[in-house]
């Protein structure tokens, strides 16, 4: 446990849920930086801080996944582009080119020349990969928006709590949470 969380009673609220590829040290760094910034003064603030850390970590995770999803869509994107450009060629040959593009320098040059003939560059592969992943990315972006709103709401609560201005939750919290639930239901 890091130096900021030297109270064993806080273990329960700062429980971490990491994926295999995620780094424990990076998580600890984020947690320490957030706690350093928020400086929670009581247990209620600790709970808010823990929730902000969870949300921020999930946002980092989702942003990382977004770029990985686009990267993994590059091969089918190239296949798609080549199918559009080389309509006369056999499908097998096109798939072969797309497969070897990422591992063979000669094929990379050859595909580069084909793209140039049609006024395209390798950037168009990324653009096509992005286009193909739009549905998934939109879903992830929605989740990022939700997490961002939650963080802002919690920060507002924390400020009000410190200033002794806490308002009855039914007067203000309904909005954000209800909107989030309504949105979730609409998406489903």
């Amino acid at each position, binding site marked *: 446990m890091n130096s900021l969380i030297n109270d064993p*009673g806080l273990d*329960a*609220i700062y*429980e971490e*849920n*990491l*994926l*295999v*590829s995620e780094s424990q040290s990076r998580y600890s760094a984020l947690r320490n930086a957030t706690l350093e910034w928020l400086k929670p*003064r*009581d*247990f*209620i603030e600790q*709970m*808010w801080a823990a*929730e902000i850390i*969870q949300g921020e970590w999930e946002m980092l995770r989702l942003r*990382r*996944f977004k770029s*990985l*999803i686009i*990267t*993994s869509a590059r091969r089918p994107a190239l296949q798609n582009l080549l199918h559009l450009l080389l309509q006369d060629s056999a499908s*097998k040959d096109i*798939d*072969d080119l797309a*497969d*070897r593009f990422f*591992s*063979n320098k000669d094929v990379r040059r050859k595909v580069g020349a084909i793209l140039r003939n049609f006024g395209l560059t390798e950037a168009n592969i990324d653009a096509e990969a992005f286009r193909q992943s739009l549905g*998934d990315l939109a*879903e*992830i972006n929605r*989740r990022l928006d*939700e997490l961002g709103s*939650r963080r802002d*709401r*919690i920060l507002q*609560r924390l400020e*009000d*709590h410190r200033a*002794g*201005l*806490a*308002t*009855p*939750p*039914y007067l203000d*919290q309904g909005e954000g*949470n*209800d909107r*989030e*639930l309504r949105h*979730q*239901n609409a*998406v*489903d």
Partner: protein
Amino acid sequence: MASARQIAANRKNARKSTGPRTRAGKQRACRNAYRHGLTIQTDNGESCDVVESLVRRMVAGSTDQDLLHWAAVAARAHLELARIRQVKCDIIGRMAQYGALEPAALFRARAAEMRYLKSLVDKPRKLKPIAPLPIPSEAEREAEAVQRLLPELRKLNRYEARAHASWDRALGEVSLRVSKCDLRLD
């Protein structure tokens, strides 16, 4: 619209199906509606202890029944959120590890695979073992798992949004009462 004859045939066939008969079949069928267990009650001894400990920390020393009630709601919602997050990590991890990902490719191109297979037929001889192509990194597998699991994760996010709303409201109530009592807790 089914004809009267079809309806009669359906009813006749349905009478033949009386559900599971064996003990094992009944045991299995009773879990048909079970998906991820997020709706089950978890008031076991261990979580009660944790809830109690969280409540104590939130409202140390207070005997205000309202305050105690909201603190308990916040504590339970907090544990619920932790449980949902754990389930999310578990299913992503499981999918990344055992999901229907393609097996590691042995050849960089289909033509190379064809040449290899042809050489096996033309000149039966001992060939060098084939090293598989590098497999995707753990992060790439997880990203693919998340992509495949998006519909499932959406459902989990809905559960999480409910738990979060409950947590947010309860903690807000606790904060309000603490402010009123001017009770700053450690």
